[in-house]
């Protein structure tokens, strides 16, 4: 399965600022997925990032708040913009394998104060 390097692993940010999360995959993948997991909760898909096109956002998530870049087939970033305490969460990137499910990055634990 793919190996994903995600950083930062955690951060504490001031409200109103932005944080960019990076994910690097050790192989080329068509789609990368960004999830949010609030404490003790399930995973919610934010958006799907395809190389060379705009990301597709799920209901409740907008590009202005969560801009995504996908400059090549091994890398993607998610920015959490104009943060508020409600954005405190774990953010995870993932890729889909063939016959072995999704592989997740180790996650970014974000606290907004």
């Amino acid at each position, binding site marked *: 399965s793919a190996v994903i390097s995600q950083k930062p692993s955690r951060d504490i940010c001031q409200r109103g600022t932005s944080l960019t999360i990076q994910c690097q995959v050790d192989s080329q993948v068509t789609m990368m997925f960004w999830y949010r997991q609030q404490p003790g909760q399930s995973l*919610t898909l934010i958006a799907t990032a395809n190389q060379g096109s705009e990301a597709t956002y799920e209901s409740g998530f907008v590009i202005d708040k969560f801009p995504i870049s996908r400059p090549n087939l091994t890398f993607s970033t998610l920015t959490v913009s104009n943060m508020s305490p409600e954005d405190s969460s774990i953010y*995870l990137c993932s890729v889909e394998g063939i016959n072995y499910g999704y592989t997740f990055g180790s*996650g970014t634990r974000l606290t907004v104060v």
Partner: protein
Amino acid sequence: GQQVMQIPQYQHVQEGEDFTTYCNSSTTLSNIQWYKQRPGGHPVFLIQLVKSGEVKKQKRLTFQFGEAKKNSSLHITATQTTDVGTYFCAGQMNSGYSTLTFGKGTMLLVSP
């Protein structure tokens, strides 16, 4: 939209007891996947079920996919403390369209 319900939300067992979590989808699934997330960790893929009525085993773990491809279960025989974590099912409607819908997960605590 597609919904995946999972019960129970939480279960605390004594080591050696069995454990089962159940997953139910509002729509017929192409496949269902199971993940385990250890405390402080990220979800790790366990298995994927594709066929109606499929049963797969991984050591003490038994996974089932319902005949109608709308429900699934994970059963752990004789739990161990290493089984602690949250188990998520995740349904995929179309194999060619990759979005997964996750259940809310079942948190398993195992006391020695």
